[in-house]
């Protein structure tokens, strides 16, 4: 992808011209195009038919099992506890940056599953902090961060994903909303965040794929995908998240219904802020478990 995309004046024409962005935008993007020599960034998606009960509540045991499988696959070690030991050390002060948006918060079952494995990896309970709105102060001194939130559409940034989840590490998050949240990747370069993230978890149990009205939420526009995604790369995981939402929107509305232009903070996070990769040819999506209705 050309450096033109990091010039200060990004236009509609730039998006139309650049193939890599088009690949990010299309729900028709297929599997990895080229399994060449270059090492690819892994995004692991695990789904389980029993992840939710009939009332759409997460099943704690199934959630734990899903998280374990995903992390094991990502790290490349069968034993999930040993895999977590590769992510955090007992001496770490670990911050779980969760998300409390009232309509679709991080499920408590996912937070508990994370805490359980952190403790199994040797981190004391009093050295595990968790916050969302107060992260700017409570998590600023952490030595390790676990980034976790549900995937949803967002009025300004196109999607609420792992990149955007760190917006609460700044004292004035609303300043990042204009210009369709283009500079979100900048937050990842701040000293309170840079280099600390050990794992990104994008919760796709019941993603929100469309929003209207001031509250941008309707249960009609969520569906039981019953999945978790993990990656070391927040840009790659968000790029896959966009594909998933676009695919669901096409399935639901019967036509392309783009988020396209409002998700360019993902490309900025890649090309301007160097936080990760949005290039689909450099991302390896590994799918585990239940494959019916996987959409991507």
């Amino acid at each position, binding site marked *: 992808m050309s450096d033109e995309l990091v010039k*200060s004046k990004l236009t*509609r024409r730039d998006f139309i011209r650049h193939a890599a962005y088009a690949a990010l935008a299309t729900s028709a993007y297929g599997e990895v195009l080229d399994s060449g020599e270059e090492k690819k960034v892994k995004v692991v998606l695990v789904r389980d038919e029993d992840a939710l009960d009939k009332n759409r509540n997460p099943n704690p045991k199934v959630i734990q099992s899903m998280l374990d499988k995903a992390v094991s696959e990502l790290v490349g070690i069968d034993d999930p506890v040993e895999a977590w030991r590769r992510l955090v050390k007992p001496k770490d002060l670990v911050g779980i940056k969760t998300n409390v948006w009232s309509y679709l918060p991080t499920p408590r079952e996912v937070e508990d599953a994370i805490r359980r494995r952190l403790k199994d990896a040797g981190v004391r309970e009093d050295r595990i902090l968790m916050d969302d709105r107060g992260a700017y102060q409570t998590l600023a001194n952490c030595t390790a961060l676990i980034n976790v939130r549900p995937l949803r559409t967002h009025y300004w940034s196109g999607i609420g994903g792992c990149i955007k989840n760190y917006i609460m590490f700044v004292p004035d998050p609303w300043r990042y*909303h204009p*210009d369709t949240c283009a500079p979100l990747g900048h937050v990842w370069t701040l000293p309170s965040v840079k280099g600390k993230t050990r794992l990104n978890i994008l919760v796709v149990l019941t993603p929100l794929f469309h929003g209207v*009205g001031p509250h941008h939420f*309707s*249960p009609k526009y969520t569906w039981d995908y019953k999945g978790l995604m993990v990656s070391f790369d927040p840009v790659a995981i968000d790029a896959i998240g966009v594909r998933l939402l676009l695919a669901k929107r096409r399935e639901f509305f019967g036509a392309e219904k783009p988020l396209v232009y409002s998700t360019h903070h993902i490309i900025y996070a890649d090309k301007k802020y160097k936080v990760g990769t949005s290039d689909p040819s450099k991302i390896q999506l590994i799918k585990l478990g239940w494959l019916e209705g996987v959409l991507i």
Partner: protein
Amino acid sequence: MKGWIMWIIYSIAVCAIMASFSYSETLHDIAKRIPTEFDGWRAEGDWRHYDRNTLFQHIDGGAELYLAYRFKGAFVRRYLKGGEMGITVDIYDMSSPEDAFGVFSVECYGDEVGIGQGSDYIEGLLRFWKGRFFVSILTRLETDESKAAVLKLGRLIDRAISDRGEPPKILSLLPVNGLKRRSVRFFRKHSILNRIYFIADKNVLRLGDETEGVVAEYERKDGKGLLLIVRYSSAKDAKAALNGFINALIPEAKRTKIARLEDGRWIAVEAVGQFLFAALDATKRGFAHNLIETMRGILRGVKG
């Protein structure tokens, strides 16, 4: 005789005062007229008030839509009934009917239900505008009962708002032939235009508090596409915006002001007096050209 004259003067003064009150009703005034109970639904607590500095606490991530218009303040309250999910009512004071219409127009996806001066209902969400107020009434889970309650509450609030207002004057410039009326969107800032039709990260069209714009969809025999019209404070500003637009999007078409993009769609643009207008996303060159020519004809007779 003197007594009659005094009585007439007095009556005129009273009428004038009453008239001024009816155009200056506040959120407080309206809130007092909305019942705390109806059909078994009860208000939960008192109205909560939000202003430009605190609105994000209520609609985190969505406040910028209202801040991009002349939002002044909002009253919010919930209604509850038994096992039904609650109904959330938001009443926004947008400072002017134009801005109330603007906020309403950007998200019309549902059906007109005859409430307020324009309304939209879809899946548990009712939105309408009246006078300078925009109202949103939402039930998270639509049932027959909650839908009926949302619509009834909408009518009650409609009656509680006395003022009416005119939609933005710029809408009168839209050609009628082929116009999809529910697609009309009014905006002031480039952040809103970018949500409707992304132009560029930077504000190449020089939009701001003193500009007003409209985008609408058209479908005709000669093609389909969008029409964008922006009114500036001066012809000089419109010309500068025209140059900015061409340089950013179609620099190869400085002379012709019409070009085909790599996705096969056409763009054409022009400025006349204080107005810039553009055909966007046009399926055919002829459509783009014709739309521009139509706008030239309309604006020939428009002063400022």
